[in-house]
Each structure stands twice: as C-alpha cells, then as structure tokens.
C-alpha cells in the first residue's frame, strides 16, 4: 500500500468517526428539542383549560414520559392534545363542574318571607306529628287561606296548631281508628276505613311485591 493510500484510508476512518460522533450529537440535540417542543405544546394545550390546566398538564406530561425515547410519537401525542384542547376546554368544564353549574356564581336560595317561614314551621310540625294517611290536608289549606292580615299571625297559627292537636286526639281515640291500627298490627285488611282500598288477600300475598325478587320468595 502506497503512503497516499494509507493517508486516504486514515482520512476515511477519521471521517467515519467524525460523522458518527456528529450524528450522535445531532440526534441528541434533535431529541432534546423534540422533547422540549412536545412539553411546550402540552403546556400550551393546558392553557386552554383555565380551571383544570395544572392538573391536566401534569397528567399529559406523565403520559409523554411514558413514551420514553419515542420522541416523534411524543410530539404527535402532544400535537393531538393541543388540537383537542380547544374543544376540550368547555367540555371538561361541563364534565367536571356539572351541567347545572357554570362559571357564573351560584345564586343563593331566596330567603323566605318571615311570615311564610312561620307558616312553613307550623306545617312541618304538623307533618312530623301526624301520619300521612290521617293528615287532613284540605282542612289545613282551608285554615291557612283563612288567615287574616289584621290579626296577629302568631296567635292564629297557634290556634290552628291547637285545633289540629285536638282533632288528632279525638280521631285517635275513636273506635274506627283503634280498629284500624289494631288491624294494621294483626294484618287484618277488613279494618281498613276505606272499603274500596281494602285488600282481602292474606297478608303474605299482599306484601309479596316488597319481599324481594321471585327467585328469593320461591326458596
């Protein structure tokens, strides 16, 4: 081999080494830039979500990291997140905060007028003391509509309350009421005060709908 040939071979070897080093440097550089670009795109996408931005930025960056060395896939992922983030903003707000809530402040529940508050308290007290079936709703409405503005409201409400207490006392002491409540305890349907609502079937059949599914009742 001539000296010139040796020189050419040496130069070639040097060139290969230089190229491989340069290639590695370029690849590292490009990879670094691609990662940075992907992260920028994700942060930009998160800016479209005013309330949830920080949380989703962290989530998407975590997913970007899951792609590891696949920088181009990462860039594609970041780009698609950015593309979707514009429409995602409103959708996420709605999904997270609910359809009824919005960025507008929630209006407080209007406060009841003081008089109405007292009437509501009276009705609530009556409902708590009486059973639904014996609650004389029409009578109560008649009493409430007869309230007079010129008289003291407190006194009128007290009168209604006492009237109902007396009514209940008499009603509960009556024979039909006693028979009915005894009938409920013993499961005797014939004691029901309303004949058209009586269910004459035996008790276990009457309540079968509440005893669980059919396969359970067959056991």
């Amino acid at each position, binding site marked *: 081999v001539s000296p010139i040939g040796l020189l050419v071979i040496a130069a070639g070897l040097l060139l290969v080494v230089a190229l491989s080093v340069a290639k590695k440097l370029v690849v590292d550089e490009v990879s670094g830039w691609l990662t940075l670009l992907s992260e920028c795109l994700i942060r930009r996408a998160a800016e479209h979500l005013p309330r949830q931005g920080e*949380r*989703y930025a*962290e*989530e*998407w*960056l*975590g*997913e970007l*990291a*899951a*792609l590891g060395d696949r920088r181009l896939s990462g860039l594609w*992922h970041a780009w*698609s*997140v950015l*593309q*979707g*983030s*514009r*429409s*995602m903003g409103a*959708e*996420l707000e*709605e*999904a*997270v905060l*609910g*359809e009824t809530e919005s960025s507008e402040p929630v209006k407080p529940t209007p406060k009841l007028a003081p008089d109405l508050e007292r009437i509501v308290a009276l009705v609530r007290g009556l409902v708590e003391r009486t059973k639904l079936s014996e609650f004389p709703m029409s009578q109560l409405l008649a009493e409430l509509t007869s309230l007079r503005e010129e008289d003291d409201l407190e006194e009128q409400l007290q009168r209604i309350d006492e009237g109902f207490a007396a009514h209940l006392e008499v009603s509960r002491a009556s024979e039909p009421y006693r028979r009915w409540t005894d009938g409920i305890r013993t499961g005797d349907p014939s004691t029901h005060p309303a004949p058209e609502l009586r269910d004459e079937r035996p008790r276990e059949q009457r309540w079968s709908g509440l005893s669980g599914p059919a396969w359970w009742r067959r056991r």
Partner: protein
Amino acid sequence: MGPQPRMTVQTLGLLSAMLDAPYDTWYGLELGRVSKLKSGTLYPILARLERAGWLSSSWEEIDPATEGRPRRRLYRLTGAGADSARLAVDGHLAELNASSNREPRWGLRPGEQPS
C-alpha cells in the same frame, strides 16, 4: 353515584375496552390507544364518568424526583361503575341485535351454526 353520564358510542367503546380488564388501572394514553379515541374526546369522557362515580382516578404513587419522570394519572372502574358499564354496554349490544333482526352472535354455543 353522581348523575348518569351521557352514553355515546365513544363512551361505550371506552367502557367496553375497560371492561376487558375491569380491575386494571389505566392511564389516559393507554385508554386512548385501546379505545381509539382522540384526546379531545377521551378526557372529557373520563371526567364525565369520574363525576358520575363510574371511574375513580388517582396519581401514580411514585416520587417523580427518584423516578426521573412525572407521575401518571391512573383510572380504574369502580365496583358500581363496572356493573353500570356492563349494563350499558349489554343494553346497547342488545339494541343493536334487535335492530339488526338476527341471532346474537354470543347466543351461539361452540360449534353451533346460526340458523
């Protein structure tokens, strides 16, 4: 449980993908891959399902400084969510079968030929 989530084809696709491994935890990118949903569709659906109580999510329990990477957000079906999802997916498939007026594919036994 929160309000019923809106049941779209994309939501059903996501749920059915998650029902393949109902006890697994998934992160968003994985879910996007298995359900073939774009991120603009995927994350609102995840948020909606989470709000309805069908999914729960939590941050991955790692120390980002030690691991050298950010935490991932992990999603999983809740017990009630898995039941509701199964009902929703089955109901949708039953509707599809009823509308296509043919025997359901899963109604055939091994080796049985559709009539």
